[in-house]
């Protein structure tokens, strides 16, 4: 805990952290909205709506949250349970998100079993989504909803299994201790269990809600027809629940595999003292300067007065953050890590989300039967074998003093061989992994 915060008392710190987490949530939602459109635009033959996308997306965000709330209110009177279901779908995600920790000092609670709890709560969010859609579906579409739920749950199980490899390496289920373990071992678990991360990413992408998958071809078609103003205001990612689910997934990935709030090379602070690596500490303030300048430019370009003011507020916030990030550089190293941690965590989450959306837009969607088979016949066994191999490598490191790099290489090689064998074996018997025509 940073001493400067201690003046506030625990209640004050909790309140502050609560606000910070809400800010993270909103920032993440905006981030998903922006990236989703950026990716869609990069697929389109010509750019649409250049420049002023940020305020429009803010507006889209408020509109869609308002429409979510209105949808909640507009449920038929006396139908409590559909209402409850759509509450569950969002609340599960938010609870999972709040159990993450965003920096050395920015967290609400550190449960011993934090990771299981987070996975469970995000499962709960999925369940709420399935229920909410089930309440509004009828007849044949009900089976469709059930199938979608089944697919999502299967891939969620696969991604949880993929996380296990990171958990084994950390030897703890607590979110903070997982990050601490990465600091102590001197490497993000991304480097110690690369296949675990790959499997996690793959199963999260494959398991995304089918409602949250934009029809790629349709997007490019509207782009050809010119800017589709009405299309801006749709919720960018299927539903609020699906977006928060993606945020939780990004948070889990950056906590378990990408070192959480740790700066790159955080373990080697003393190794590289005085080298250019130290300049990494200057990155958060520099980024904030860039964001301030960008927002100011947008506000000068913008004609709509409301958006102009919004952009001014945004640039003011960025400037304030710059002051905080730059000012803390004169404090001791622990304080720097505490304040910059939130920045690094946000940056990692943003990177994950961008990679996720980019890949999602480019990977073709499988039909139900194939994707279910892909989950159960391929991803889940490979993730299980990967976890077992990582455990074996850990034993080898501790008992026989193998180097981490050698054990990681052997683990990866072994799992890859298994995956190739499994894929060939399955391709011989079924046509599970051929692409859709």
């Amino acid at each position, binding site marked *: 805990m940073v001493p400067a915060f201690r003046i506030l008392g625990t209640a004050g710190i909790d309140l502050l952290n609560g606000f910070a987490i809400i800010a993270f949530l909103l920032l993440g939602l905006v981030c998903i909205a922006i990236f989703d459109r950026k990716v869609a635009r990069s697929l389109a033959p010509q750019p649409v709506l250049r420049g002023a996308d940020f305020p429009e997306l803010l507006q889209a965000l408020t509109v869609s949250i308002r429409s979510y709330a209105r949808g909640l209110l507009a449920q038929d009177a006396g139908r409590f349970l559909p209402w409850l279901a759509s509450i569950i779908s969002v609340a599960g995600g938010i609870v999972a998100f709040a159990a993450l920790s965003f920096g050395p000092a920015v967290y609400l609670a550190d449960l011993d079993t934090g990771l299981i709890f987070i996975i469970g709560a995000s499962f709960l969010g999925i369940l709420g989504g399935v229920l909410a859609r*089930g*309440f509004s*579906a*009828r*007849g044949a579409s*009900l089976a469709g909803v059930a199938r979608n739920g089944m697919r999502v749950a299967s891939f969620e199980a696969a991604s949880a299994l993929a996380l296990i490899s990171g958990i084994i390496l950390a030897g703890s289920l607590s979110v903070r201790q997982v990050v601490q373990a990465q600091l102590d071992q001197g490497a993000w678990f991304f480097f110690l269990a690369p296949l675990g991360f790959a499997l996690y990413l793959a199963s999260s992408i494959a398991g995304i809600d089918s409602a949250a998958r934009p029809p790629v071809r349709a997007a490019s078609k509207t782009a050809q027809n010119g800017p589709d103003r009405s299309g801006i205001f749709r919720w960018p990612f299927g539903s609020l629940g699906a977006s928060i689910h993606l945020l939780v997934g990004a948070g889990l990935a950056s906590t378990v595999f990408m070192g959480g709030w740790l700066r790159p090379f955080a373990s080697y602070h003393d190794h590289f003292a005085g080298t250019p690596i130290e300049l990494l500490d200057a990155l958060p303030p520099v980024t904030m300067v860039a964001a301030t300048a960008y927002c100011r430019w947008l506000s000068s370009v913008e004609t709509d007065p409301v958006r102009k003011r919004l952009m001014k507020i945004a640039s003011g916030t960025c400037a304030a953050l710059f002051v905080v990030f730059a000012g803390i550089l004169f404090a001791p190293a622990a304080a720097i890590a505490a304040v910059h941690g939130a920045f690094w965590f946000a940056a990692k989450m943003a990177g994950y989300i961008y990679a996720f959306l980019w890949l999602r837009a480019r990977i073709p969607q499988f039909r139900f039967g194939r994707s279910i088979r892909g989950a159960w016949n391929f991803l889940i066994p490979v993730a299980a074998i990967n976890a077992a191999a990582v455990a074996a490598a850990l034993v080898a490191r501790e008992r026989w003093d193998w180097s981490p790099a050698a054990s990681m290489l052997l683990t990866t090689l072994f799992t890859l061989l298994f995956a190739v064998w499994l894929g060939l074996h399955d391709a011989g018997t079924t046509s599970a992994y051929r692409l859709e025509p």
Partner: protein
Amino acid sequence: MISVEHYLALGFVLFAIGACGALLRRNPTLILMSIELMLTAVNVNLIAFSRMLGEVHGQLFSLFIMADAAAETALALGILVACAARPPSAGTAETEAGEMPPEEFIAEPVSSEAEAADPAERTVL
């Protein structure tokens, strides 16, 4: 001061509700849910005792119960689905005794005119 009896009472109440449900309802899905309720009630008791004795073995047993509950539910629901999902081309040759599920076990047979007459009935959701 809250004591272990409160938790035991809660456990008993939940167990009684579950037992009544399992006995009173005929629908297999609801019977399964009632069994889940009973198992959870047992878990409440075990964890309360574990807290009372200040050791961890009660929680251990509750974990075993959870694992077995999950396995049991998965298997039972698998059986239900297997019973209910008849092959689409169910001819007379396949409807031998033993091959089909006992009809009243699954549900009352759905009469087609009831379905046609009252669409609201079908969409009870």
